[in-house]
């Protein structure tokens, strides 16, 4: 094995010799630098390889004896010892790799190539960091600290701009203070113990203050909040390549030193470190939320990440060794952060990318360079801790280490901070997908002005004398106006389509991304393998294969066919092994998903990401069906969330909605994470556990269901996603939360209070379900946008499912699943039919449609069946659901909930009639006179769903009996069958007989009318109406559609206030205000910063005293 000394000697020597090489030729110097860094990367990797080959398991690997070199030939206390253990090797490999990539990046970019001086400084920096990692001597650490710091100042200032000099100067001041404190600490320690070797320092008391001085200095070097103002200008002022190095490489050395110190530190020290980390983490995130400059935002994010790692160091041992956790976080942070800095460097034509506010050219970028944007997405996902990237696993293990120790504050900090981080990172990401029209908030959806669509004059009567002229004049003016609009539109588009150039080569960034991806997959394999759950990685494999197909630009139809084939095979293999509730939901997810994919086949050409994301989503839903371990479940759940986010964000104006979806999903996921950790017996069906686990898990699932109060994401996500995707989301994905509720039902049946046995979590869920049903219905009534109507309708229907589930009776559960299945069918019909309508008419506003029954009869029929099934009117399936719901509710004694549910179902009539009337009935508009029926690919799933609905309506026991079997054994039997009559303790229902009677009573008047109105029954057209002996002027003014239920609105008044939206807005604004006001402590003044640094040190010391 190669001695670690070379890791310091080579770069240091090369740094001195570099000017000489430069004489030989610029390229020679560059080649030398790269070669050295490659070698430095290879060195620790070679150690790692040797160790891994020689040791059988992980535990052994951690105990491997470090590679130690005593310089000068003396033993340790006298000489300086360099030691490289597994941790050192890991961190060194990462540091050098990042440095290698970073320098490569700077060398291959087109402008501001690094000069020889910069290269020397960079090499020195790397030397310093390597030294920090390897050395075991405290004074030697000081030396390397100084080397690192000085090279950093120089690097920052090398930009040459005024701001850079200022930033560098502030850095020097703060760094000097920190160094001084460190030096004082070293001197004090030496005075107390007579040794500076880490391996020989006594682990006993008496050295607390000295160690505290060291710790404080190191903490200060790590830029803790609030003493970090001096460091932040760097990110904005310096060259992004250098920012990347400083952010990714510089800090890691110091961090590792702190880690090396931990064996010496007392719990108080550690608590202080953890506290400092936590404060830094959370406040940096809050401030980052308010940043308008992306690099500064990334800078805050770096600070926050360092804080998180401090927290890891300070919080002690967890389920896996700290060093592994640290390695995961550090690697993740370094590569993703450096990658992001490089990206901002690459696309920096006019600094548009770096600005959060003005980003008009980003969508163009997404169109022109989809791969680049995909890469940014991957880097952001890694940074935000989404699966399968390393920090995801680190987050899981960190939380599972914190929760059992009861460190709730730290848990809250970690999760809250992560949520905020994901928020601002993806807020930036959505800029790439942002269309010119983003509705932003769901309750203020913008209704575009109704532009005149005909060139016909609008006056009813025209005078005889000048009529013709007036007519001609009007026509001319309208035509001119139309022309003007058609002329302006391309201009607007052209303005938005600014070309975006990439300056330099993205190869280093790509390598970083790939390393992250493979590291993530390796971590996934590593963490999932112990539970034998590698099969959970199937969605990831699908994602990779799909991404490959996408890069090859395979047409979407073929991709979809492949996906359908894959899902078919998967279902074929998976479903027979399932039983009971998972089988029901398996059919729902997979077969329902297949049904949805048919509609997607309508897409022509290559739709980047569509097929792959849909397939991955369905596979990850499949994961939920059989997953056993908590980690595996959490992994699958998060994967599902992020994939569905990516699907939603594809929508034309979906960026705001998608971001809301992501935020709520992640919030829910974090709630689930804590809940899962609280489950003592691990994640298994029907595990019983503490109340809190139930509440937290329940909250997570309720967010996915879109319960009232937590539904803010729902309408936008369903409505703004692409039309066919909405159908998938609403009819398939929304059931995931429900399925998980079923799976963890045991959590919800314990009483909340011992004294009131009836009041369980399930009881609360019941009320929530009833409220959701009512709120969803009410919100749906007053929408002008058809997809918002359907989205809120989905929310209401999920409310019924939740209510039925919460009953915890046989009939309730049967009904919940019955609703889930039928909702899949009729929502497919509705959403896909509406997708067809929107596709043909080009608008989503209902009042702009009308009279389409004559043009799109099949879609009309499908919507008709859909709304009858949804509303619960016999004889279609909906009635079965209503019957079971009320029967079960009354049997259980939930009378008020039953009343509420009934009211909700009556309200549902309002929006359903509005839906079908304003689109299909009424007056046909001129511009729709020639449109055709929806495309065939849309009709096929509708027809399949209609057949399904009709079958279940005709023979309800086809569905109810299997459902009854699926939950057999959970509850006492309360229903019985008499032939095809379903008998409960309260009443009975014979779906078959109802169907026959209905058909009978329908046929009698039909035959009568057909017979008596056979002759002289004139079919008239749309304007042949009684119009007070006048004629309608235009279809637009004759179609009663806008603000359809105005009386209801005025009757209900303030009852309709969107309380939930208001609440979440308030939360958001509070966070923003905190961010803004916290940011004020950064005055931008070097003296103030120095004062902060000193004060910080003093406060830490005081806290230490207090701690003792």
């Amino acid at each position, binding site marked *: 094995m190669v001695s670690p000394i070379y890791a310091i000697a080579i770069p240091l020597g090369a740094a001195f010799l570099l000017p000489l090489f430069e004489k030989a030729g610029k390229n020679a110097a560059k080649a030398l630098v790269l070669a050295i860094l490659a070698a430095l990367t290879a060195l620790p990797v070679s150690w790692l390889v040797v160790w891994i080959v020689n040791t059988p398991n992980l535990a052994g690997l951690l105990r491997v004896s470090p590679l130690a070199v005593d310089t000068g030939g003396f033993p340790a206390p006298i000489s300086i010892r360099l030691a490289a253990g597994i941790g050192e090797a890991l961190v060194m490999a990462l540091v050098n790799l990042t440095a290698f990539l970073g320098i490569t990046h700077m060398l291959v970019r087109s402008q501001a190539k690094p000069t020889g001086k910069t290269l020397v400084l960079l090499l020195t920096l790397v030397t310093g960091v390597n030294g920090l990692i390897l050395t075991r001597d405290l004074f030697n650490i000081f030396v390397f600290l100084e080397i690192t710091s000085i090279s950093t100042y120089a690097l920052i200032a090398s930009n040459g701009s005024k701001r850079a000099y200022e930033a560098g100067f502030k850095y020097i001041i703060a760094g000097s203070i920190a160094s001084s404190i460190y030096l004082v600490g070293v001197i004090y320690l030496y005075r107390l113990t007579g040794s500076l070797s880490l391996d020989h320092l006594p682990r006993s008391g008496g050295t607390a203050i000295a160690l505290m001085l060291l710790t404080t200095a190191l903490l200060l070097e790590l830029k803790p909040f609030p003493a970090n103002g001096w460091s932040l200008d760097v990110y904005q002022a310096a060259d992004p390549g250098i920012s990347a190095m400083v952010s990714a490489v510089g800090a890691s050395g110091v961090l590792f030193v702190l880690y090396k110190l931990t064996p010496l530190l007392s719990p108080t020290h550690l608590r202080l470190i953890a506290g400092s980390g936590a404060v830094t983490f959370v406040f940096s995130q809050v401030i980052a939320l308010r940043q308008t400059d992306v690099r500064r935002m990334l800078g805050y994010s770096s600070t926050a990440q360092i804080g998180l790692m401090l927290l890891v160091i300070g919080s002690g041992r967890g389920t896996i060794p700290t060093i592994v956790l640290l390695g995961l976080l550090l690697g993740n942070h370094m590569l993703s952060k450096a990658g992001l800095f490089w990206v901002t460097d690459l696309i920096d034509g006019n600094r548009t990318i770096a600005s959060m506010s003005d980003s008009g050219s980003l969508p163009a970028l997404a169109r022109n360079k989809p791969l680049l944007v995909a890469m940014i997405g991957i880097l952001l996902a890694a940074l935000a801790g989404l699966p399968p990237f390393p920090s995801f696993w680190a987050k899981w293990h960190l939380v599972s280490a914190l929760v059992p120790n009861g460190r709730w504050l730290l848990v809250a900090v970690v999760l809250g901070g992560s949520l905020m981080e994901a928020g601002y990172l993806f807020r930036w990401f959505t800029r790439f997908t942002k269309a010119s029209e983003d509705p932003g908030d769901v309750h203020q959806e913008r209704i575009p002005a109704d532009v005149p669509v005909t060139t016909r004059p609008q*006056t009813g*009567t*025209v*005078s*005889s*004398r*000048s009529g013709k002229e*007036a007519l001609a004049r009007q026509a001319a003016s309208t035509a001119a106006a139309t022309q003007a609009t058609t002329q302006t539109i391309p201009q607007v588009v052209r303005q938005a389509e600014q070309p975006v150039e990439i300056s330099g080569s993205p190869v280093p960034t790509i390598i970083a991304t790939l390393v992250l991806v493979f590291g993530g997959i390796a971590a996934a394999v590593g963490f999932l393998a112990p539970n034998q759950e590698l099969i959970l990685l199937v969605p990831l494999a699908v994602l990779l294969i799909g991404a490959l197909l996408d890069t090859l630009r395979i047409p979407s139809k073929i991709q979809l066919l492949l996906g359908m084939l894959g899902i078919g095979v998967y279902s074929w293999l998976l479903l027979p092994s399932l039983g009971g509730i998972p089988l029901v939901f398996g059919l729902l997810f997979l077969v329902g998903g297949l049904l949805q994919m048919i509609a997607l086949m309508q897409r022509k050409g290559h739709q980047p990401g569509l097929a792959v994301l849909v397939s991955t989503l369905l596979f990850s839903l499949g994961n939920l069906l059989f997953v056993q371990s908590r980690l595996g479940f959490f992994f699958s759940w998060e994967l599902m969330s992020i994939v569905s986010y990516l699907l939603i964000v594809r929508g034309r104006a979906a960026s705001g909605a998608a971001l809301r979806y992501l935020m709520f999903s992640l919030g829910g996921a974090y709630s689930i994470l804590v809940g899962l950790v609280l489950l003592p017996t691990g994640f298994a069906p029907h595990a019983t556990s503490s109340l809190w686990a139930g509440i937290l898990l329940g909250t997570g699932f309720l967010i996915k269901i879109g319960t009232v109060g937590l539904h803010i994401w729902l309408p936008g996500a369903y409505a703004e996603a692409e039309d066919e995707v909405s159908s998938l989301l609403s009819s398939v994905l929304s059931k995931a939360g429900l399925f998980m509720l079923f799976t963890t039902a045991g959590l919800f049946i314990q009483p909340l209070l011992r004294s009131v046995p009836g009041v369980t979590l399930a009881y609360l869920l019941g009320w929530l379900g009833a409220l959701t049903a009512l709120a969803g219905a009410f919100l749906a009534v007053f929408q002008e946008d058809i997809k918002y109507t359907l989205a809120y309708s989905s929310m209401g229907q999920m409310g019924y499912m939740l209510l039925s589930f919460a009953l915890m009776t046989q009939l309730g559960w049967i009904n919940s699943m019955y609703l889930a299945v039928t909702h899949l069918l009729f929502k497919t019909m509705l959403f896909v039919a509406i997708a067809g309508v929107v596709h043909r008419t080009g608008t989503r506003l209902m009042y702009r449609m009308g009279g389409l029954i004559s043009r799109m009869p099949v879609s009309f029929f499908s919507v008709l069946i859909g709304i009858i099934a949804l509303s619960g009117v016999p004889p279609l399936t909906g009635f079965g659901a209503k019957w079971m719901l009320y029967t079960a509710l009354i049997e259980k004694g939930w009378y008020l909930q039953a009343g509420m549910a009934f009211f909700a179902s009556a309200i549902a009539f309002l929006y359903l009639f509005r839906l079908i009337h304003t689109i299909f009935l009424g007056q046909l508009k001129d511009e729709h006179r020639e449109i055709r029926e929806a495309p065939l690919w849309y009709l096929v799933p509708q027809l399949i769903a209609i057949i399904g609905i009709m079958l279940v309506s005709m023979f309800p026991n086809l569905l109810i009996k299997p459902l009854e079997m699926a939950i057999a054994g959970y509850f006492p039997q309360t229903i019985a069958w008499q032939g095809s009559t379903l008998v409960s303790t309260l009443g009975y229902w014979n779906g078959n007989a109802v169907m026959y009677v209905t058909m009978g009573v329908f046929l009698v008047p039909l035959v009568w009318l057909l017979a008596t109105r056979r002759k002289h029954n004139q079919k008239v057209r749309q304007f042949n109406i009684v119009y007070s002996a006048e004629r309608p002027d235009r279809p637009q003014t004759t179609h009663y559609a806008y603000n359809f239920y105005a009386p209801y609105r005025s009757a209900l008044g303030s009852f309709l206030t969107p309380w939930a939206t208001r609440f979440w807005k308030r939360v958001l604004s509070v966070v923003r205000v905190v961010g803004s006001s916290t940011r004020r402590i950064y005055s931008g003044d070097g003296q103030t910063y120095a004062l902060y640094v000193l004060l910080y040190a003093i406060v830490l010391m005081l806290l230490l005293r207090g701690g003792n």
Partner: protein
Amino acid sequence: MYENVMKSAERFKARPLGRDQKIGGMKQREDLLFMKVEQEQAVPFITWLKELGGFGHLVLFTAVDFIEQDIFQITYLLHSYEQHHDIVVLVEIDRQKAEMESIHHLWPHAATYQQELFEMFGITFPGSPRLYEDFALEGWQGPPPMRRDFDTKEYSEKTYFPRPGRVTHDPATYMKEQLYPGEAQTW
């Protein structure tokens, strides 16, 4: 009030039809004043009445066809709410060149009156909105029907299929002869 209006009337060359003068053999109301004004001065005078004289309300706006003198007499009836006083502005315009300044800028609803006057009398008001649109007569194609040289009887007979056998009686004689023959003397 009266003096005030009269003072300004001199400026506009408006001539009052004297208060004591009996029009149609009857004494005028105290709170009603007739003013005759030249065509060029009419709109300035009305503007003054509206803006400074306090006559904010255009009550009526019509025309009379004096075919014998070959003029249209345009009548503006204004009312002041403060003074509880009416004023009638009479303007005579040439029947052959039936054109009058529009006052729709003073009262928007005057446009409707002008529309009607155009339709019924053929008086044009240049600049008045929707002047040439149909008002009451939808698609009327004959001459303006309220002009006295338009023979409505002839038009009606030509157009509306008169039912033959129509007899016209003088009501007084007819009543006397047919209905109350015995009481003829009491009339």
